[in-house]
Structure formats: C-alpha cells, structure tokens
C-alpha cells in the first residue's frame, strides 16, 4: 500500500496540454485592416438583417405557445354523464406510478351513498404534484378511463401542502381540450401488438 501511494505524483498531470484545443494561428501574412473591417461589416449585416425577420419570442406569461394536443399536464378525475365518478378505487394507477405519488384508499358503495357505479369507489384520491413526473402511466393503467392528464402546466403554488391534490380538486370540471386530448391519444394506441403482455418466455 505504502509503495502504491508513494508512486502517485503529488499533483496529477493535467489531462489537457497547455495549447490543446487552442486554434492554430493562421499561417502567412496578415491580410490587412481593410479585410478586418469587411469581416466586421459582414457580421453586422447578419445582425442587422435579423431586425427585419419576424419575431419568434413568445412574451410568456402574457402570450403562450400552442401545445401539442397530446400534452400531459395536471390530472383530472372524470365523471360519467349522470354525475357518478368513474374512479372505482382499484389503485392500478398507484401501482403503475413510477414515483409513487398517488394514494388511493377505497371504500364500498352502498345504496345510500353511491359514489361510483359498481361496488367500489375511491374514498381518498390524492396526487402529490411535487413528485409527479407527468408520464401518464396512471392514465394508461386506468381500466375505466377515470384519470386523465389535462393541458395545464402552470401549477406553481405557495406551499408544499397545496401540491397534494385531493379528490375534490381532481374532480374539478375539465377544460374542453381534455376531450380533444383523449381523442388524440386514442388515435395513437399502445405500440404493443395485440395480445402482447410481456409474458416471460
């Protein structure tokens, strides 16, 4: 060990040599001042020509760019037309979530308290938006298309607690372009061929 240590140089040699990466000086005679001015003018011409091009900067937040119709922003929980919640509390979204930001606690529907069709509904449905990576796996996993990702991306808020989106918040009425997004997503089905389930061979 001691030998190995002593064989190490005290200051390691830098990986880059002193002139490495520096462009070589042009060879031959200097072309003269006129050529320098001409080069400067050429550069300024490029700069000045940009004045007359159309403006591409978007003045966010006053102006906003157009998003892809398949853009994945904040989540919404959908309802059926008769007002019942679609979510059946099966927790498959939570199981599919790669970051574990979804908490679902299920409960049983009764005739007195019917929240969703069928036997089961989500008593608690919470998404931690600070953790969410907006991958959309929850939407893929959902067997009843209850959870969808909407177009909003401006989700900043003033406290960490406010980023835990509760069921009430997720059930807010959806903006109309969510439906457009669902249609667009349906037009791009899963790339897996029919019947392929990743069964180990």
């Amino acid at each position, binding site marked *: 060990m001691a030998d190995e240590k002593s064989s190490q140089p005290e200051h390691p040699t830098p990986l880059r040599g002193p002139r490495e990466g520096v462009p070589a000086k042009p060879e031959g005679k200097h072309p003269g001042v006129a050529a320098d001015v001409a080069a400067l003018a050429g550069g300024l011409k490029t700069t000045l020509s940009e004045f007359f091009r159309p403006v591409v900067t978007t003045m966010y937040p006053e102006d906003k760019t157009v998003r892809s119709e398949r853009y994945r922003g904040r989540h919404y929980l959908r309802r059926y037309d008769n007002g019942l919640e679609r979510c059946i509390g099966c*927790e498959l979204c939570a199981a599919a979530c790669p970051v574990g930001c979804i908490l679902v606690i299920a409960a049983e529907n009764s005739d007195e308290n019917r929240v969703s069709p*069928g036997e089961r509904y989500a008593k608690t449905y919470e998404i931690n938006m600070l953790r969410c990576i907006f991958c959309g796996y929850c939407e893929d996993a959902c067997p009843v298309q209850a959870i969808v990702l909407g177009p909003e991306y401006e989700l900043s808020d003033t406290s960490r607690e406010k980023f835990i989106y509760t069921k009430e918040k997720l059930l807010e009425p959806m903006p109309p372009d969510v439906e457009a997004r669902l249609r667009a997503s349906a037009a791009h089905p899963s790339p897996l061929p029919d019947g392929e389930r990743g069964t180990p061979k």
Partner: protein
Amino acid sequence: MPDINLTIDGHKVTVPAGTLIVEAAKTVGIEIPVFCYHHKLDPVGACRLCLVDFSPGPPRPQTACTTPVAEGMVVRTQSAMAVQARADILEFELVNHPLDCPVCDKGGECPLQDFTFRHGYPTSRIDGPRLHFKKPIPLSENIALDRERCVLCYRCTRYYDEIAWEQELTVAQRGVQSFITSQFDQPLQSNFSGNIIDLCPVGALTSRVWRFESRPWDMTHTESVCSKCAVGCNTTMWQRRGQLVRITSRENDDIDEGWICDRGRFDYTDVNEPSRLRTPTIRGAKSTWADALAATAGGIKGKGAKLGISLPADLTNEEAFLFRRLLDGPLKGAKVKMHGRTAIPAPAGPTMPIKEIDDARVIVVVASDIENDVPIIDLRVKKAVSKRGAKLIVIYPEGVDLDRNPHTVHIRNAKGAAAEEVRKLSSHELLQNPGGPVAILFGDGHGSEDMNDLASACGALAEQVGGKEMPLYRATNERGALALGVAGWDSLDGVEALLSWGPPPTAGVPTSVRFLAAWDHLPRDGYDKAAVVLPATTFAERQGSYTNLEGTVQFLRPPVAINPPLKEAWEVLNELGAALGLELDYPGIFPIQRDAAAKTPALAALAQTPSPEPVTGPVLVGPAHP
C-alpha cells in the same frame, strides 16, 4: 412407506408411495396449477386444471391431483397435449368469470389471474353473455360471496364437511348453473368460517372486514402468532399505512395446520381504533410517563395484600418475567388475577404435543368447550377422528360440535362431577384395548370442576390406559405465566388499590378500590374515575413471546410500529420498577429473554435468538402460454 422413483419433466424424483403427482412435482419446483386440490383436503378432481400426460397411462391428459405416483412413471407436464389441455380448461373457467379484477379483493394474489398468465391463452374468445348473479352476498358478518367469480372448485364446501364438520355451506343447482350457498340462506355461524377465504382460489369468498381496505401489493406482512387463545396459531399480519388491515393463517403443521379460527382472523379492528389511548393521563389530565408512573407507584406502593393486580390474558413471557420481579420485590403480597385463565394447575412436566393428537387411537375430551376455548385443537381432534379413524369420548354437560360425528361417545356429566366420570372411564370398552396412543384433553369446565380432583383423575386414567395428558389452558400465555408464577387466581374483593392491566377485571372494579391505575389500549367505562390511565400496546405492536398450551415458546413480530408516546410494556415495567425502587435496567427485550431463560427452565427456548423470517417454499415456475 416404500419410496417410489419416477421422472417428472426429466427430473428424477423419489417420494413415498401414495404421494400424488401434483405433490411430487412440487418437490422439484414444478408448478402444476390446481384449483380444487388442496393439500389439507381430500382430492376430488373437480376442476381438471392439473391435467398432465404420463406413461404408462392412457393416451389422454390425466389429473395430477388424483393420481398417485407409480414406480417408473414418466410424467410430462410440458407435452403439447398437457399444455393445451390446461389452457383449454382455463378458457372454460373464464367463460363466466366476470372481468372485475380491478375491484376484486383477490386481484394481485389470485391463482386464477396467475394461472391464466402462466398457463392460459393470452386472448379471450368469449364474447357472449356471461352468467350473472346478485353480488356481493353477505354469507355472514365477516364473509362476502360473489357467485359470478366462483370456479366451483368446492374447496369451501369440502373444508366445511371434512375439516370443520359443519353443514352450513353447500352447492345448489346443477352443471353450469351451480352456485355456492349457505344452508337455507342462513348466515354462517361456524367459528371456523374464515378459513374458506384463504382456501378460495378466486375472489368468490372475501373478507368483509378487510373489504376494499387495500390491494395486496400495498401491504407489508409479518409472520407472527395469534394472541386470542392458548393454542398459539401462526398467523401472517398485514399492515398498510401503520394500520393492521388483515390477518391470515400461516401453516405450521405442529400447531395449526394452516387453519385459524374466526376470532383470530377477524377480531383485530381495535388495533386501528381512532379512540385508542396514546398518552398517559393523571385524573384525566395529560401527563408525561414519568409523572404518571410516579403517581402509579405512589398509589400502589406498600399496600401489601390491599393491592390488587389484574393481568391481561395475553401478557408475554418477558412481561410476565418482569412482573415476577415486581411481585418478588416492592409489590410483595399483592393479589393477582389473570384474565381468562383456567383453574388448571401448572403442568408437572412436559405434556402431550398438539401434533400427537393425530396419532391417537382414542381421544378423551373432558370438561372443555373445546370449540370456543381452543378452537384449533378442536379441528385437530376432528381430523384425527374423520381422517385417521380415532375414537372419541367427550365428557361435558352440554352439547358440543364434536357430537356431529355419530360415533362420538358423549357422556353428559353433572356440573362439577367430571372427575367421577373420568374415573369410570377406565372400564369403558373403547379404552379396554385402544390399539395405540390415548390422548386425554382436559379443561376446567369454565371453573365448575374441582381441578385438583379432575387433574388427578385424568392422571390416573392416563396411567391406566397408557395415555398422554393435554391440559387445555385458555388464556393466551397462561402456561408461560404459570411457569413464572404470575398467573394468579386470587379474588380481588376488598382491595384498596387496583392496577388493572388490560381490560378491567371480569367481575368489575371492586367497590372497595380507592386508587385505580388502568393500563389499557382502549378507553373504557370507569376510566374517568381512574387516578392514572396508562396507554398500552396491542398484540400488533408487541415484541416478546408466548408459551402455548403444549409448552412451545413462539415469538411475536410486531407488524405495526409503535409511535411515541406509546411505549412497550417491558419498557413501562422497567420504569415502574424504578419508580417503586426496584432496579430493573434492561436495555432491550433480548436481555430480558436471556435472563428469563436462565432463571426459568420452562422458558429455556427464550435464550435462542428468535428465528428469522420463515423460509418460503421454492417459487413454482410454470410454462408460458401455448
């Protein structure tokens, strides 16, 4: 039994004669899917899912669950014929199975799901209407039945017939229209009904207590021991978000054989009770542990025989050991009463192990309501009688469920006269020439019998017929508490101070009590008058060990973490000892166990480090779908 050599999928297997192919395949890690077959039930061959192909044999797929192995047999589970036969059977199982896996409590741990993935076809050809039933149907307070999901394996009804000796569950209608129903649509009343939930290979029978509480993958599970009676059945406790959400059985052939009673399975919701006591209080005001224990010590110190102590049925060996130290020291002379204990004295030596009931030729059950006191012993007795041909003699004043076997000899004694009947037994015809071991199981008739008399009568009978005795203790750790001498049986009448640990004394708090210190996990009536109330842990948060009725020491593993200010009982006893002036400075549970093992011969097993999590069986791997 002679050994048989055979080949399964190219693996050479040697198993005892009479082994079924499906069991032989397990020994080399080959999965043959089964629904109707269960290793504790008689084979029936109802579901046809275990089809394999073997030679010599007919040129058709045969059921592996009903065929015993034969010398030189060659079994092929992967031949094209067998693989397709199983996939076809699975397709038939799914004809009427609803696609409600997302809301089904079995989803995630469902053999039908797993087998369909591993052995079935990847796509469905079923597009016709499916059979529909009303669902869910409550079979009892604890069990829900979903007839649409049922695959008619008859495990539940066979369990009821063979194991539990009940007639409450049956199949109605014929063929594809068959469905499971309780007799005359009456709710199930058996104390053993919960086992059908574990047995059901699909989501047809599910727990109503656990209903929609969580998906299987949300929970962590802990291998622990049931704390409801003295049998010490092994259980798996399931935790989600700091709550105990489910208890299932865990097979230990020496004790429970994979069954637990309904009390052990469903009686756990008090652990999650929101109103549970969490902070010590003095006269209703919140306080620190130090103040509360100082107040307790002040109230109970130096009272001698005027101090009463009520102990819970499920105190662990470690807690009992610490309590022994207190009783030998500052609390000397106190009257101690243990909850739920029998009047049976401490055993003089080793008693009959539970598993030996299987081999008994004659079983004598004396003065015990065995079905309710020690339920899983009851199932053992039933197994010995119905599967091993043992003869059964019951001495009990009232009817018991063992009477359902017509050959049971039931001697109805007058209350308190069981000993007399036992003495007469030595001349009973069944005991003249038993032809094998005799098991004598005796209880205390719920306090109605003179135990000294009965114990000596049973001892004399055992000597005469060459039998072994098994005292049927009732309280969870009665045997451990007896070994440590804390299982008191004193009357608490007339005491001035009472330390009530666990639920209040069965007879109520005596009126003479001036100072009451309650140490319990739930707020109960009368605690508002208590001077000190200390919060206690439940079985789900406790470390330690129980000695079961046969003397086996088993370790508890807590599934739920303790949140301060809740403290473990051994810690509280340490501090209470300090407050009383007794130096108990155990830094943890292991030093207590080592000390207890060194000082108490019956608890020598405590010195061994608690066994690690039990090793799970080999992962059975099946083929991909055809």
